């Protein structure tokens, strides 16, 4: 009996499952970084499939900036409940309250996530941290390994990466070091959406078009919130919008959209002329090498 050739989504799914199992076999304390966004929700779905009918053999870690949309927190809690997962939450607010971090003048908390992340990795002695990064997102990520070694400071050194050959992953690390693991490295944004549709994966409602009061800043539609704004001449307007990524509310913009179903979103993504990070993430616009700099510092 011969088996049919895998289609693209089956091939990507099998590769991701292989990566999850390899890490579960070689590491003592893995964890999935979970934001409630579509990529980390996809990670959880793939992890469930990798170990079914047994439960996922590692917990989730959410670095909560405190600037999250309530729909996303609600979604997170229901997902954890439904799948019987364990969840750790690192509240950025706790780090601000005890003085380990200082609020930035612009109110943005995205750059503040790195310290709570690294502190949590140390506290829980996590040795492998799964992230939803994809190589198609940005040029520096295109050179990222699937299993990527980080030193005790969480830093990425792009010039001393281990070669990654065949599907043989080298997870050796010293005490105090950990690895970041990117099981969906080879997926594109469109692959993610098509797979979410095929598998019927539930997402937070903010990914679908809805009416929301937003204001314009730096070419992006931002929602009113504790992160500040609207300021000065920025005026609130009621618009039909949706989010393409889930991140800190201060720098994650909505796009104007009427796409309220997965079919409509896939049509919109197919026709879109902007990458998801470029369209809606102010933190990537700071400089040409913005992502590379943040990855070197231990960012996701």
């Amino acid at each position, binding site marked *: 009996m011969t088996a049919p050739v895998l289609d693209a989504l089956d*091939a990507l799914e099998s590769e991701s499952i292989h990566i999850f199992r390899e890490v579960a076999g070689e590491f003592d304390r893995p964890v999935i970084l979970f934001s409630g966004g579509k990529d980390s929700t996809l990670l959880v779905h793939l992890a469930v499939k990798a170990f079914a009918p047994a439960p996922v053999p590692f917990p989730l870690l959410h670095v909560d900036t405190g600037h999250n949309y309530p729909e996303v927190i609600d979604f997170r809690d229901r997902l954890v409940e439904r799948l019987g997962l364990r969840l750790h939450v690192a509240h950025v607010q706790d780090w601000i309250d005890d003085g380990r971090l200082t609020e930035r003048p612009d109110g943005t908390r995205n750059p503040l996530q790195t310290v709570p992340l690294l502190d949590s990795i140390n506290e829980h002695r996590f040795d492998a941290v799964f992230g939803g990064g994809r190589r198609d997102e940005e040029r520096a990520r295109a050179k990222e390994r699937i299993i990527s070694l980080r030193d005790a400071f969480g830093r990425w050194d792009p010039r001393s990466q281990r070669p990654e050959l065949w599907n043989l992953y080298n997870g050796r690390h010293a005490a105090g070091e950990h690895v970041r693991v990117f099981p969906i490295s080879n997926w594109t944004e469109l692959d993610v959406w098509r797979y979410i549709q095929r598998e019927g994966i539930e997402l937070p409602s903010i990914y679908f078009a809805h009416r929301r009061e937003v204001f314009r800043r730096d070419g992006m539609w931002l929602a009113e919130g504790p992160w500040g704004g609207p300021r000065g001449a920025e005026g609130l307007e009621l618009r039909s919008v949706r989010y393409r990524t889930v991140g800190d509310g201060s720098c994650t913009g909505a796009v104007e959209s009427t796409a309220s179903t997965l079919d409509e979103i896939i049509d919109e993504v197919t026709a879109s002329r902007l*990458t998801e990070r470029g369209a809606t993430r102010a933190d990537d616009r700071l400089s040409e090498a913005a992502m590379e700099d943040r990855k070197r510092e231990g960012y996701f």
Partner: protein
Amino acid sequence: MARDLLRFATAGSVDDGKSTLVGRLLYDTKSVLADQIEAVERASVDKGMSTPDLSLLVDGLRAEREQGITIDVAYRYFGTPTREFVLADTPGHVQYTRNTVTGASTAELAVLLVDARNGIVEQTRRHAAVLALLRVPRLVLAINKIDLVGFDEETLTTIAKDFSGLARSVGFADEAVQVIPVSALAGDNVVERSTRTPWYDGPTLLGHLESVPVAGPEVSAPFRMPVQYVIRPRAGALPDAEERWGPLHDYRGYAGQVASGTVSPGDEVVVLPGGARTTVAAVDTADGPLDAAGAGRSVTIRLTDDIDISRGDLIAAAGAAPRVGSEIEATLCWLADKPLRAGARLLLKHGARTTQVIVGALGERLDVDSVRFVDPPEALTVNDIAMVSLRTADPLPVDDYADIRATGSFLLIDPPTGNTLAAGLVGAPLAVVEA
């Protein structure tokens, strides 16, 4: 028909225009989005250029942009209505063996670039030898910059003839090789067929990439699957698992990715290195059992007999099992700055098993410039390729790399630092034919 996925690699020398070719493929398949184009246009203006430099689309790291070179393998993604592509873009000059070996290890096809003005050069021979060694199933020679030789047919014919001889001498079958004249800068024959090469009746580069089979020879090889993880939900299952899966108290499944061949319920298998024989009871996935699973599919296999199996074991077709032993003759691609001498004690990762290894005698070294094997060296240094004898602490079930890539490949790892030192290929997969 469903869209499938082709993994391929590109290789070329400095200044052959590889980054431009890759940029052209992305640009002409509309895989580059407006904000990326704007970023490249801004950067091109900053560098004082009059037209957008498509190569900037693919140079990722700051050091690369500053120095105008490509340091590391980069992965690119594009798609057409019929197929998705994962491209491993391997730079030519810095650590070319390391990068080419890395890119070629997952590729079902490689695109090798030459400059039409220079034809086959030393680096073309090196790349062809490494791609042959890595058993990349298919090869494209893209003759670039044909605009700079006036779209001359005779130039193409001469280079194609030279290359056919080279490809044949390192073991590529004629039908595995396609020669395509292109201009990456102007776009001729990359995605759009050129009107300036009326004498060329072959496919465009993209047309060829869209039409070759995506599957390698593993599909028709005997069944192999390394066990990555043992799934025993006894201690606790997914909340709805018993409703979907039935009673799970005795469930014991062996999780892995099919490395070669096909597996179906009822198949006779052997578990190695132990040697116990049994029968496949079921091929499970989270979406339900399969009648058959082929190479590349991640599955969970249940067996009819209760055998002690753990991570690192290999399940293989009982009638065509790999050999098991601790003495392994292999070809090493040495990737590290630290030299290798006989007697070194290292770690070896094969499939899902890592074991200790002692390096025995160093054998003949491949001189990649002449594509000849020469006398054994005192030590292997970075980018060296040589035969070697290894002795492993645990017996390993191996195939020759030339027969099955997945069970014929391994890594050598430095115990103190954990660094990957070498790519290992069981046997002597490069059969050089004397011209």
